[in-house]
């Protein structure tokens, strides 16, 4: 399938116009203040909360990376991504806790929560630094994915650099127009595009290419039976599976762009709808994406790079041009909806947890101004990272979920362990991040286990050990945890 540059551009332009219109409409309800801009004043309904949570969580990794995993490693890809979805187990425990203390104490960012709970600005500073170090390269890789896709599908008509520029400008504009409101609304559109497109194309390919699910599964069992087992053709050894799933299982509380969304639902009912909606979306999207990868395995078996599984599938003659174009927009939507959420989250973290902690006497309007100013700065930084195509960028991007995993003991401790201290939190996050980043960069995996596993063990031990040796902020810990104990019972939450 040769998709002409003009058609590709047209598809992108239509998508930009529709998304921008939605963002502009979202601006109409925009009030004043930090909380309004960064978390929509905690007034988002259940349906939009579910869609923005889903679109932010699922990036271009799904249709490119996960489909590639299924192509290369088989059914382990399904287990890996469904284990991630099972991470919602953590949200049913910690979601109401985030939401309740967010409302009670007025938190805008997850690192602000940690800093207040541990009564130490250094905690917020280190947490903010980790987010910036690991999430900007992650955004850069998402941008690169969009640019490559546009370049390939337009047969080189849209150069890589133009694709990068288009993607970053859209992400900046949609985040900047009305903050969380425009991001949540455009995310909702993008989530719908992602799920509808992925489902349509998968069903189309399975019925057109194999005559239905029976034929598809028969062919899979006949030609690629090993792909239906673990460790399968070799990629998903137990150590790799553990190394991949462990950081991703904790993604829902470790990644600020996702955990910040636990502040936005307008009520417990909306929070409930957000969890339910995300579970259904995630289950369908995961299964569909893995089937997509398996289809590519059967129809394009000779690819040298697994990440090309999706583009190769879309380029087959059996996929009509219009479906290919819609799929391109869906993959771009998945990337942009993640990038703009990360940019907004990082800008709130920079303004609140770095700038306001350094300039204590500053007015809220000034902090908001800094937050808005920093959105394009983060975007431009990610753009230059993507343009330079440093090897280190992709390493840090891969390391991002493992790097942010190092915040997990501090987060869990904040809600459940009165004895946790600021020194324990700072030491744990710092030691864990240094160990993880060093292992990824040097590719040193002791006993074959991945950096996330070692970093996770070390940061937990350091958090407990240092906390036991230092003095906890007893008054705040009791206020915080006692309030939760009392209110959770009222809300019927565990």
């Amino acid at each position, binding site marked *: 399938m040769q998709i002409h540059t003009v058609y590709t551009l047209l598809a992108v332009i239509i998508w930009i116009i529709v998304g921008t219109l939605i963002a502009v409409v979202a601006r109409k309800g925009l009030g004043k203040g930090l909380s309004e801009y960064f978390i929509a004043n905690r007034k988002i309904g259940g349906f939009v909360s579910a869609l923005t949570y889903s679109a932010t969580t699922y990036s271009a990794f799904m249709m490119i990376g996960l489909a590639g995993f299924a192509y290369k490693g088989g059914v382990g890809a399904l287990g890996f991504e*469904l284990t991630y979805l099972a991470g919602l187990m953590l949200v*049913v425990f910690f979601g109401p806790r985030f939401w309740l203390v967010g409302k009670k104490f007025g938190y805008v960012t997850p690192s602000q929560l940690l800093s207040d709970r541990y009564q130490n600005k250094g905690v917020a500073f280190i947490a903010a630094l980790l987010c910036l170090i690991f999430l900007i390269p992650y955004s850069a890789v998402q941008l690169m994915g969009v640019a490559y896709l546009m370049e390939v599908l337009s047969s080189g008509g849209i150069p890589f650099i133009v694709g990068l520029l288009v993607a970053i400008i859209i992400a900046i504009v949609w985040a900047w127009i009305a903050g969380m409101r425009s991001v949540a609304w455009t995310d909702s559109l993008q989530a719908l595009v992602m799920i509808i497109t992925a489902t349509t194309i998968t069903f189309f390919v399975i019925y057109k290419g194999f005559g239905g699910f029976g034929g598809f599964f028969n062919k899979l069992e006949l030609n690629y039976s090993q792909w239906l087992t673990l460790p399968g053709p070799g990629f998903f050894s137990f150590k790799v599976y*553990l190394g991949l799933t462990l950081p991703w299982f904790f993604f829902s509380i470790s990644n600020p762009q996702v955990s910040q969304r636990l502040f936005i639902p307008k009520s417990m009912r909306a929070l409930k709808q957000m969890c339910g909606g995300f579970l259904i979306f995630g*289950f369908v999207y995961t299964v569909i994406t893995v089937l997509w990868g398996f289809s590519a395995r059967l129809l394009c078996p000779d690819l040298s790079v697994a990440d090309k599984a999706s583009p190769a599938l879309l380029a087959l003659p059996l996929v009509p041009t219009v479906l290919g174009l819609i799929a391109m927009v869906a993959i771009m939507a998945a990337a942009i909806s993640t990038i703009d959420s990360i940019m907004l989250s990082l800008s709130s973290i920079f303004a609140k947890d770095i700038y306001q902690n350094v300039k204590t006497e500053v007015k809220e309007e000034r902090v908001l101004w800094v937050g808005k100013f920093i959105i394009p700065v983060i975007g431009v930084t990610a753009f230059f990272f993507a343009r330079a195509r440093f090897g280190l960028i992709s390493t840090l991007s891969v390391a991002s979920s493992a790097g942010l995993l190092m915040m997990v003991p501090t987060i869990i401790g904040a809600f459940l362990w009165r004895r946790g201290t600021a020194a324990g939190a700072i030491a744990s996050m710092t030691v864990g991040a240094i160990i993880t980043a060093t292992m990824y960069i040097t590719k040193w995996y002791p006993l074959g286990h991945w950096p996330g596993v070692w970093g996770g063990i070390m940061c937990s031990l350091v958090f407990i050990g240092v906390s036991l040796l230092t003095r906890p902020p007893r008054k705040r810990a009791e206020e915080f945890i006692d309030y939760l104990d009392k209110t959770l019972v009222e809300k019927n939450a565990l």
Partner: protein
Amino acid sequence: MPTPTIEKRRKFSKMRRGYLLWFLILLGLDYIVPYTLLKNVPRIYGSFLFYIIWSLITIVSIFAIFIRWRD
């Protein structure tokens, strides 16, 4: 005599531990079954079906917790 709130807190604490144990069992199955029992079952009703059913059971268990939340 404990107040109703204290009694409820105890009940919640017990439920929390119960669910924690159940989730740990589910996670254990996720890591163990495909690498042991289903290692030599190269069929669609092997690990593929296992992960689908495992995931649906997990989702239902999660629903069972949050469906009770109230304002």
